[in-house]
């Protein structure tokens, strides 16, 4: 695929940093070419050196790193040997970059418009007013509504998606020949991510720039890129056109990454029968009072869900949908404002503190951040011993044996018993968290986004472990996630939450194949399926939502989705929607769907 006259030619790029007595080289010889107008994906695990490489292309390294060698040829000149003033001219003018965590990359003390203006004027002769006008144009170009107002905003006043757009406006303000996008959507919600990538892709097409898209999401690669570079252990191990890559990955690492994607085709988990309502909530509501105001944050609004014995129920939604709060209320880590949580016929919201403590041996939770969930000063043995000590007491040696068994159960070696958390990786720690949650043989476990901080590979194996454990132990899961792929793999049933309410509920198959509620549809269509044969950029995008999720403080009167829904009517805006049972375990909160007014489109996927 390498053209004869590449835009960028990278050879043997090496970046490293010193630690006491050692030199660590995360990027140890990266070579590739980039052609004009091409969109190339750079994929790799966390820590594989993707971001470091991206920065090094601009001649920079994040302290304490240093560029140790190699060349980055751009327009016939080696950027790494250019004097500072000249490379500074190239940065921003010829090569634009956007980075992850956009809000931190914006100067917190300057209005966005001024920053874009500075970036523009650094490379173009322009008056301040002209720069401002240009900033407004750029913001409009990247899809920001009301750019005249947004130029006056500060970084902290912008949402993540907005800030990323501002960054793109800055990066593209001088129409560079190359745009480097370093995980631009990490931390963004699914719908926003899709929207943003669409817009970025379109903008790049309009400006005629080439793009290097750094990511660890296969879905992003499949949908937006022409070519893939796989970075593994500091080197490019595979360089292939997208379709070829997905069809026939060459390198073992690529094959492993894609394995899960290939296995996935094997259909949906079997539905469980019996034991219905083993755990259920009854109109669970949680409001948080707002400091210095009599308003409340309506985090959870009359949520009724039910998990059968041995069943895994997925709870999906974007950040701010209240799904985590539901999980915390189930565990009584938050006390619900109203409603009941009934486990095996017993309302746990009515238990006193001592009874509740006893009850906790029957229900457990696994949190999102594995590092944060363990006491950093304790050994794995201490960590695993704690629930046993609290609930069962007894002989120390016996408890230790159980801890060792629990480790084995999550496929970890007993030698880890003496390790401390800081010596362990995220996926190992998450397994220890799972082992800890299961050690007292609970009936029910809340899994609160347990895979979200893991790299795709680790994510896959953890999901497999969870599925296996459920099968072996017959426990019930409430699996909270924004990642539809994992839900589809692990869960029998799924509930979709939006702004504290459940908007749709049904079996995974029902919801994934034929989503009813406009929000579910948008969510599913925004999900970037790792399928290069059906690229998002090649098809018209269906059922897109506009704007962003409203504040849970001043919720709309009628349908909560009204401000974003493409099917909205005046009635929607006026009438609160109710969750209506459609039979076969399905329910949806949309009167237009119930009335059959919204024609069922072909499901976006599968």
């Amino acid at each position, binding site marked *: 695929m390498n053209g004869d006259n590449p835009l960028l030619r990278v050879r043997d790029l090496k970046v490293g940093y010193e630690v006491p007595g050692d030199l660590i080289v995360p990027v140890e010889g990266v070579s590739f070419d980039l052609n004009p107008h091409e969109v190339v994906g750079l994929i790799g695990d966390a820590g594989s050196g993707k971001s470091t490489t991206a*920065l090094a292309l*601009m001649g*920079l390294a*994040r*302290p304490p790193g240093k560029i140790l060698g190699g060349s980055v040829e751009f327009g016939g000149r080696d950027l790494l040997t250019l004097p*500072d003033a000249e490379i*500074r*001219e*190239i*940065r*921003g*003018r010829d090569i*634009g*970059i956007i*980075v992850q*965590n956009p809000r*931190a*990359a*914006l*100067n*917190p*003390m*300057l209005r966005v418009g001024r920053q874009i203006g*500075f*970036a523009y004027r*650094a*490379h173009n002769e322009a008056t301040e007013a002209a720069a401002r006008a240009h900033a407004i144009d750029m913001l409009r170009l990247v899809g920001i509504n009301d750019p005249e107002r947004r130029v006056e905003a*500060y970084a*902290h006043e912008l949402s993540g998606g907005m800030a990323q757009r501002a*960054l793109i406006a*800055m*990066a593209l303000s001088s129409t560079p020949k190359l745009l480097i996008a370093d995980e631009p959507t990490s931390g963004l919600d699914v719908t926003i991510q899709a929207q943003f990538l669409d817009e970025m892709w379109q903008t790049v097409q309009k400006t005629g720039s080439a793009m290097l898209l750094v990511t660890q999401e296969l879905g992003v690669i499949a949908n937006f890129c022409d070519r893939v570079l796989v970075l593994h252990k500091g080197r490019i191990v595979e360089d292939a056109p997208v379709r070829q890559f997905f069809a026939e990955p060459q390198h073992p690492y690529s094959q492993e990454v894609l394995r899960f994607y290939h296995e996935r085709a094997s259909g949906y988990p079997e539905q469980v029968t019996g034991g219905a309502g083993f755990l259920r909530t009854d109109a669970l509501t949680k409001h948080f009072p707002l400091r210095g105001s009599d308003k409340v944050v309506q985090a959870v609004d009359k949520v009724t869900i039910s998990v059968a014995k041995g069943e895994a129920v997925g709870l999906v939604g974007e950040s701010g949908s209240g799904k985590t709060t539901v999980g915390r209320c189930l565990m009584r880590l938050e006390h619900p404002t109203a409603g009941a949580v009934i486990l095996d016929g017993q309302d746990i919201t009515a238990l006193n503190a001592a009874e509740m403590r006893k009850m906790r041996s029957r229900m457990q939770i696994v949190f999102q951040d594995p590092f944060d969930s363990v006491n950093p000063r304790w050994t794995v043995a201490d960590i695993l011993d704690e629930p046993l000590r609290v609930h069962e007491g007894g002989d120390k040696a016996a408890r230790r044996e159980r801890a060792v068994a629990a480790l084995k159960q999550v496929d970890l070696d007993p030698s880890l018993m003496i390790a401390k958390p800081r010596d362990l990786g995220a996926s190992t720690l998450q397994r220890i968290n799972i082992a800890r949650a299961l050690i007292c043989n609970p009936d029910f476990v809340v899994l609160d986004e347990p895979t979200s901080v893991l790299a795709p590979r680790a994510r896959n194996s953890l999901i497999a472990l969870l599925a296996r454990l459920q099968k072996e132990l017959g426990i019930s899961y409430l699996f909270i996630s924004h990642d539809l792929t994992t839900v589809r793999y692990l869960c029998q049933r799924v509930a979709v939450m939006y702004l504290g309410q459940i908007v749709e509920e049904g079996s995974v198959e029902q919801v994934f194949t034929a989503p009813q509620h406009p929000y579910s549809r948008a969510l599913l269509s925004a999900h970037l399926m790792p399928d290069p044969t059906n690229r998002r950029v090649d098809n018209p995008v269906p059922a897109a939502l506009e704007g962003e999720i409203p504040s849970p403080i001043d919720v709309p009167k009628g349908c909560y989705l009204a401000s974003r829904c493409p099917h909205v009517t005046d009635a929607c805006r006026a009438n609160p929607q109710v969750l209506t049972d459609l039979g076969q375990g399905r329910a949806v909160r949309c009167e237009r769907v119930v009335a059959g007014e919204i024609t069922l489109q072909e499901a976006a996927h599968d």
Partner: protein
Amino acid sequence: MLLRYITRRMLIGVIQLFCLVIAVFFLIRLLPADPVSRLVGLNSSPEGYEQAARQLGLDRPLFEQLWIYLGLSPDIAPGLLQGSLGVSWASGSTVGSEIATFLPVTLQLITLAFILAFIISIPVGMLGALNPGKAADKGVFVYSLFAGSQPEFWWGLLFVYVFYFQLGVAPAPLGQLSPMTFPPEPVTGFMLIDTLIAGEPAKFFEALHHLMMPVITLAFILSGPIIKMVRQNMLRALQSDFVLYANLIGLPRKRVARYALRAAMGPSMTLIGILYGFMLSGAVLVESVFSLGGIGQYAIRSVLAFDYPAIQGVVLVITAISLVVYLLLDLIHAAIDPRIAY
């Protein structure tokens, strides 16, 4: 919004001051002596003692004394509500007027010391931040640790010995002016300003000369924490994502430098406020070495004389000034950094 914030802060400050007044009021009344004996002096008969106690209001019940002090019994004597800090028992003058003569000396001293410390610290701190790990940075770092942990009164004495006694380039540590010089009519209380108002430049320079050593002493001590802070904040700013991004987007050096500097300024404000507040009373040792009649000296004198109204007044005024300084610096911080919401 701003106004509401200021009002709210002032209100909290007033409440804090009120608590402070109450706390100090009762605390000092636990003191193991009262100044009555000092008043009666040679006439130590019980009658004399009672008379003096009555004069000071000490014969009244404690809560009545508090009431009067707060200004809730203005028919007996004006109190805080009437803007009066009471009358010093040691001198018979109003505490307000006494503080008005002592306070400017300290304010002048520490403000000049802060300015000097800044003039030294910003370039030195930046020198460290810009050469992390290099010899210059090490030097800066050790200096900041050293200067920040020194007994200032001892350095003052040392300077007196070296610059006055040995070299003769500094004046004797005898206060704001040489004893032969008649001070100008106090208008603002700030010697440097008053000499100018009086149109006496010779005295102005004399006052400046007399301030030289105490200011250098304090600035030396202050430069420790300030350099440390400048260096740290600058380092942090230089390592921040947005400075990196500013480089990535190809902004000119000058612009990036300005980004970093501004980012380093904001968080410095809090420390400056705390240091300034501390120095209001902490300068007392240097005042003492250089015979400057500042508020700290007044405080010591009042504590040693068990002069209750004066102690209360000093604590109240110093704390009030600290609170105002904190507020001002918070406002500056908010002006620099839009993330700080009121």
